């Protein structure tokens, strides 16, 4: 398997940014928050060219942070991200345009005071993909590609609907001709009927342009629909990774099973309408994660080993991996 996008043992810490006053107060013994948050811990992923990897998890799991690390928006505290063996960041700065991002809130990610055509053209002009004079034609082509009328390049973001703005955001990312696309909750703030349109657009474009994608979402049904493989995150770590059908059908990690089980699904068959179960407890604070395996306080399979030792990642197959001491029990219990 040739690796195109490699995330190598990446971690990201967020330390408390103490002001001078707070530092002095801490020295004098006042209670100031000095703990750091390990938003992402020791994540390694090997993604092939053209593959779409879904990234799922609940709030605080680190999927958005991981997305920004891969996109070169945030530098990792340790580890590296590379595309086709070329590093994405050097000295804390992004040195490539091969990876672009589509952000969650289509309204917030467009400059409200700039015409949308100018926003889309800005990056390509700055990086030589088009000239100032050729920009209008260049942007018009991309507008058509994403299903927008090229006449609208001179409009402002507030004149568009949510779905249209997201198309503009996609056009902006693709106008940079990237090889890798990071989508951070691209349909979360859209209506259901518009979601379908944007998802279809996404499928059409990624297949047509042979893009490698990381699709971050909290909506499991959407991820299931668009991804080839899926990675499940919990408190900054990847607990399970594998082809969508396998992970959704026979989860190897108890959290994966519980997470998928807790989403109400329309079953619509003879005797059942909607199916879901619930998990106990809540996600612990990332400031003070549990000892050993982070999931052990909520896990039905937890043992002493789980309380003391962080599980290593086991590769079940070429494409599948899981981090759990008792994954065999989980798999056989299906």
């Amino acid at each position, binding site marked *: 398997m040739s690796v195109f996008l490699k995330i190598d043992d990446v971690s990201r810490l967020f330390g408390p940014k103490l002001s001078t006053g707070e530092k002095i107060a801490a020295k004098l013994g006042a209670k100031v928050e000095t703990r750091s948050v390990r938003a992402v811990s020791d994540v390694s992923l090997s993604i092939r060219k053209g593959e779409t990897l879904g990234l799922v998890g609940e709030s605080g799991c680190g999927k958005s942070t991981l997305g920004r690390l891969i996109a070169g928006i945030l530098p990792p505290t340790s580890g590296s991200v590379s595309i086709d063996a070329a590093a994405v960041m050097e000295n804390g700065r*992004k040195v490539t*345009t091969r990876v672009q991002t589509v952000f*969650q*809130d289509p309204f917030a*990610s467009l400059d409200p005071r700039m015409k949308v055509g100018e926003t889309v053209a800005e*990056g390509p002009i*700055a990086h030589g993909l088009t000239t100032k004079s050729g920009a209008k034609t260049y942007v018009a082509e991309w507008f058509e590609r994403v299903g927008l009328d090229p006449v609208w390049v001179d409009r402002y973001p507030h*004149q568009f609907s949510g779905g249209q703005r997201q198309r503009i955001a996609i056009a902006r990312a693709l106008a940079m001709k990237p090889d890798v696309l990071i989508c951070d909750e691209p349909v979360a703030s859209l209506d259901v009927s518009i979601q379908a349109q944007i998802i279809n657009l996404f499928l059409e474009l990624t297949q047509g342009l042979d893009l490698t994608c990381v699709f971050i979402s909290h909506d499991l049904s959407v991820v299931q629909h668009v991804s080839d493989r899926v990675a499940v995150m919990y408190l900054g770590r990847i607990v399970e990774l594998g082809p969508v059908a396998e992970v959704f059908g026979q989860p190897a990690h108890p959290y994966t099973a519980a997470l998928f089980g807790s989403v109400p699904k329309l079953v619509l068959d003879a005797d059942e309408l909607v199916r879901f179960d619930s998990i106990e407890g809540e996600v612990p604070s990332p400031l003070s994660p549990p000892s050993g395996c982070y999931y052990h306080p909520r896990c039905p399979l937890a043992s002493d080993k789980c309380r003391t030792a962080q599980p290593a990642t086991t590769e079940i197959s070429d494409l599948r991996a899981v981090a759990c001491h008792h994954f065999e029990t989980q798999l056989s219990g299906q």
Partner: protein
Amino acid sequence: MSVDRSPLGKFWAEYRENKMAVVALIIVVLMILLALFAAVISPQNPYDLANLSLMDSRRPPGFVGSGGYTHLLGTDPQGRDLLSAIFYGLRISIQIGLAAGLVSLSIGTTLGILAAYLGGRIETLIMRLVDLQLSFPAILLALVIVAMLGQGKAQLIGALVAAQYAYFARTAYGAAKAERGKDYIEAALATPLSARLVVWRHMLPNCTPPLIVVATVQIANSISLEATLSFLGLGLPVTEPSLGMLISNGFPYMMSGRYWISVYPGVALIILIVAINIVGDQVRDQFNPRLRK
């Protein structure tokens, strides 16, 4: 998708709804025009000492002077036609107010945005300096600087700028910090685009609304500060009377019934400042309710 006017068109449509603000704007524009064409419309050039005749001094409104025309608002102790002196005085007030306002705007905004963008020690240094300055009353600061630099237009503007840039710096800093965290800035930086481009093309335009509001208030403040300094005799030289000086000149005569020498310049000053403030208020209110939508 809605097809509507440009942002400016919409702004004006909303502005028009407040009748008082429109009246205030008309007054401001009128006064600017009067000031611009002061030389043309004034019956007399109050700076030309040769024109003045002591025979005409302290005459009441309606008096026909030695020049052969009616002094509509009377004359001052030096024999100047008060109407002309007010026009010229308005010109000075507006010139200095605008100049001080714009220079403070540039300096303050640059410092504020730099502090917000660079962060760290530079941010602390700049903003603590600004805070320090804000804790001094503007008048005191202006007085001290004028005392040090001496009299003259440039020195006056310099003093006013030094007293006022801090307001702009603080406003720009707050706005820039708020914008810095927003998605579209992150998206622009993620392309990647250089910091300079992002600040210039994205941050600055989006920080302008609060800065415009502060600018209108500060221009009014500059005008009143300058008048105060002139009133105290620390502003422009006696030969170039500004409104403040006119008021000061007429002060001793207030009790003896020759009210017009102080009152008319005072009224002109008040109208100008209040009109600018009303316009500023309307602009500020219009930028705010956007959030309510």
